[in-house]
């Protein structure tokens, strides 16, 4: 037990001393502020509750549960991965510590971080009651009970999911971030009313509304909008005893999920993972073929290098810096492109080729509306590594001590990102060529997305912000037709309003900002 506590404590201390934790707290404060100022409203048709302790507590807790289930995952994810990177994991693996102890320790640390966010929002609820309450009676039980009954189980389940995704093969990779987002989007949001607390609140609030003579048959909505136009009714809270059983199930489910994570945890020995083992097996099968091809390539050179004596420094051929900057840049772009593409699973390439061919063979409308947004989604994991890779693999000191660290490697990395878009979108480009009106959408996708990913990666040092932001962007814009976010012109309205041109125009700005960030990194000596 002591080991578990110390593990959780060390992990928690490590997190709260990072700058990113301050950003998380700032985010929580911002969310609370948005609720206080009335940006988020709970409404039942044209009704809302009188702003008393019960209503404000419910409003704040439901808003929190909704965001916690998404943001909480990304906030807490990464602690096992960090132990892998720092080598601390291997030290721990060599101790008698049990896998369950380790995983539960990480889970406890996740929970502690999320509970701090819950605490911030609980304080915000108190502030809202005192500042904007229409009935300022300070009933702490009514105010805080929704947090304890609804937000805390969501925090526990989110913390457990984060640790499960950290331990399970495939999910622990960067792809896990995208998988969780899709899981949240298509499962938690539409079907998670009970988990997030909306169903229970809706039952209680609707019955209170009906008891006060209103005729209302709809559901409960959490959203943005003016409060002044709504009629009010009195709601004095819910009967927690009726929901306690269900909420307890979620708490137990969270603990079981954390326990399940221990079963999938490889104790920092990657070769134990069957999937990795299969990948290595494929590589072993391909290795002789690769060696043969390299031998052929080497034999084609004019002067093969045949060392027959131990190497001596005096025997090294002198080199000079290249006088052909363009050729040098092309070489560097090719190397950056290789960095982006190398080491991907076979499936990734297969889907990429499939998308290329599908774009070539499908009707133009399908290409524009459905396939092109998918083409821009598929390399998301690769693009999100841009700007992060150098620090992640501790290569930055090697790069920063080379000539022109600002104007050589970074532009090459950006060009490689754009080139990747052009390669993957080549099929679509060929089809769109005969429809010049559609080309700005293609160009905007190819330029803007990698530029934003590069900038976010450099600013945050992690892939997650680019992955989450671009996924949300992709979902709202190209997929759901929110015109302002439709980068690629998937909808006719976006094309008509020239939306892609705005994104094309924003690209130099993003790249300029990336250069400024790199300049700052160089000056700071990172």
């Amino acid at each position, binding site marked *: 037990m002591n080991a578990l506590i110390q593990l959780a404590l060390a992990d928690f201390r490590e997190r709260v001393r990072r700058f990113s934790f301050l950003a998380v707290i700032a985010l929580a404060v911002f969310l609370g502020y948005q609720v206080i100022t009335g940006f988020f409203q709970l409404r039942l048709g044209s009704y809302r509750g009188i702003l008393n302790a019960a209503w404000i507590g419910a409003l704040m807790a439901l808003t929190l549960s909704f965001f916690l289930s998404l943001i909480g995952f990304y906030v807490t994810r990464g602690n096992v991965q960090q132990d892998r990177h720092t080598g601390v994991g291997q030290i721990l693996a060599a101790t008698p510590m049990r896998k369950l102890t380790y995983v539960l320790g990480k889970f406890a640390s996740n929970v502690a971080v999320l509970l701090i966010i819950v605490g911030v929002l609980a304080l915000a609820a108190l502030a809202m009651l005192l500042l904007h309450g229409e009935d300022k009676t300070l009933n702490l039980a009514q105010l805080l009970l929704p947090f304890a009954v609804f937000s805390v189980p969501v925090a526990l389940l989110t913390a457990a999911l984060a640790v499960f995704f950290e331990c399970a093969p495939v999910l622990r990779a960067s792809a896990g971030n995208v998988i969780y987002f899709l899981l949240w989007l298509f499962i938690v949001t539409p079907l998670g009313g009970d988990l997030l607390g909306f169903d229970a609140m809706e039952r209680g609030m609707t019955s209170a509304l009906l008891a006060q003579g209103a005729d209302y048959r709809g559901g409960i909505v959490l959203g943005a909008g003016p409060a002044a136009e709504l009629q009010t009714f009195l709601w004095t809270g819910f009967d927690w005893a009726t929901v306690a059983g269900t909420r307890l199930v979620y708490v137990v489910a969270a603990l079981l999920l954390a326990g399940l994570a221990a079963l999938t945890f490889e104790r920092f020995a990657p070769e134990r993972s069957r999937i990795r083992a299969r990948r290595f097996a494929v590589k072993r099968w391909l290795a002789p073929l690769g060696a043969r091809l390299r031998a052929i390539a080497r034999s084609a050179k004019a002067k093969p290098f045949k060392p027959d004596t131990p190497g001596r*420094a005096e025997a090294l051929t002198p*080199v000079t810096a290249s006088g052909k900057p363009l050729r040098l840049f092309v070489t560097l772009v090719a*190397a950056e492109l290789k960095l982006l593409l*190398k*080491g991907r699973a076979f499936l990734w390439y297969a889907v990429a080729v499939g998308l290329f061919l599908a774009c070539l063979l499908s009707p133009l409308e399908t290409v524009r509306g459905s396939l092109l947004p998918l083409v821009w989604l598929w390399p998301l994991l690769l693009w999100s590594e841009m700007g992060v890779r150098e620090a992640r693999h501790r290569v930055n*000191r090697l790069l920063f*001590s080379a000539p022109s660290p600002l104007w050589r490697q970074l532009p090459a990395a950006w060009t490689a990102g754009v080139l990747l878009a052009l390669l993957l979108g080549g099929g679509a480009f060929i089809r769109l060529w005969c429809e010049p009106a559609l080309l700005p959408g293609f160009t905007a996708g190819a330029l803007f997305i990698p530029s934003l990913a590069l900038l976010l990666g450099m600013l945050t040092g992690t892939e997650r912000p680019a992955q989450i932001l671009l996924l949300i962007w992709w979902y709202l814009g190209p997929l759901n037709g929110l015109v302002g976010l439709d980068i690629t012109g998937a909808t006719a309205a976006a094309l008509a309003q020239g939306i892609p041109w705005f994104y094309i125009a924003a690209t130099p700005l993003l790249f300029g900002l990336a250069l400024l960030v790199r300049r700052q990194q160089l000056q700071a000596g990172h």
Partner: protein
Amino acid sequence: MELHIENVSKQYRKAVWGLRDFTLRLAPGVLGLLGPNGAGKSTLMRMVATITRPSSGAIYWNGLDIAAQPDTLRRVLGYLPQDFGVYPNLNAVEFLTYLAAVKGLPPKQARQRIEELLHLVNLTEAAYRPIGAFSGGMRQRVGIAQALLNDPHLLIVDEPTVGLDPEERVRFRNLIADLSGQRLVLLSTHIVSDVEATATSIALINRGRLLHHALPEDLLQAVEGRVWGWIVPSDALTTLKAQHLIANTTRRADGVLARIVSETAPDPAATPLPPTLEDAYLHFIAHRRETA
């Protein structure tokens, strides 16, 4: 070819100094930087490698301030940081090709240079294996190869022999000795024998300050007559360690031979021994602690 470090200080936080008023003028050869953990060796190397800037003072390469014109040095710089990483999915050739392009080497020259360097660091057989599967020593050798890619005039190597097996360490020492002719090599290490084998001059650093910059023979001269061998019973060793600066102990049939660095003979039975650089290093570091 001259490196002039003039009155350089690096302050991290209030009252936390990485380096203070450090001045050194260097010509081609191998400078061995010796000092305890946290002495400021890596800070100095990062500043010379243009990674960080001094808080005050200046560093000149052939008369040019490297803070103002870092690329003049970067073009001829080879740098092996103490804590560097690799791209694990690339093989050694691909990784070095990438860094050669970053350093501005023409592709054709780079190809030949990489083959030669991989041979030099004994990695030819592993050249096409992903670096992620390399041992720590093999990665270190990739690091050494990348530092030599651009035929550097100034080579900065921070703890280069960490993780190398004895055979590879000897190979590296020979390499540094070969390279030193027309180059300036800054070699930082805790392993005094590495410096002993290669350095043409030695700088002793402690708590961010330069204690001594001298030829190895001058340092040895400074402790001549101050190193003693004394055979004591095993159970007396703890007391002896509390009273004297002990450089080394060797078990013998008649007790323990303690190698003691001391101004005077610790005991009439103690006999003078020829000094080594390790003795000199301990003497100067301990002397500094006493006077501080």
